[in-house]
């Protein structure tokens, strides 16, 4: 066997489109993009999540490993949910960026790759209630 190893994300992001989540959230759209995500002043991003009320639209840079994509999904959804509501659960109200990243990594270790069911587990675990 050669020394080269190509790793592609095998998480099917289509399963997250128009997905209703615990807490009354909706992933309206999600896109993996090969094009650089660059804003008006030239800053490059690896992920962007737009929150309007309880709807989320995610743009994520393509080329992440399966693990990186999974952790990114957990992170983006938990942080977006925390920003979307006026009064987030006590478990996340003091979370800084590192806390969200840690929670995402723990979710990946605990439940495996991000999936619709696992994103709901994440939200429930951190105190988001209701449909």
């Amino acid at each position: 066997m050669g020394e080269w190893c190509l790793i592609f994300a095998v998480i099917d992001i289509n399963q997250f489109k128009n997905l209703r989540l615990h807490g009354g959230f909706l992933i309206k759209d999600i896109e993996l993009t090969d094009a650089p995500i660059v804003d008006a002043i030239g800053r490059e991003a690896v992920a962007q999540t737009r929150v309007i009320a309880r709807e989320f639209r995610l743009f994520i840079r393509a080329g992440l490993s399966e693990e990186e994509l999974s952790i990114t999904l957990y992170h983006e959804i938990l942080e977006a949910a925390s920003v979307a509501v006026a009064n987030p659960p006590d478990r996340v109200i003091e979370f800084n960026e590192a806390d969200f990243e840690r929670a995402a990594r723990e979710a990946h270790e605990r439940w495996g790759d991000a999936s619709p069911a696992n994103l709901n587990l994440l939200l429930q675990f951190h105190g988001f209630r209701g449909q």
Partner: protein
Amino acid sequence: MVDRDKIQFDLIKLAGGGRILRLTEPRSGLALEKKLAPADAVVRQKKKLLHAFEAALARVELAAA
């Protein structure tokens, strides 16, 4: 002129590290953003930014009246 129910929150993870929170009101085009302080609670920073943004929106409405 402005529609508070349509305020967009963009969470942007920068390639060089760090996170930006940007608020936009589409009708007026008004936007306000801040690079989040990594050690501070995200929710608290969002509430402060939203407070400042709503004050700016009120000034826009007043100016348009």
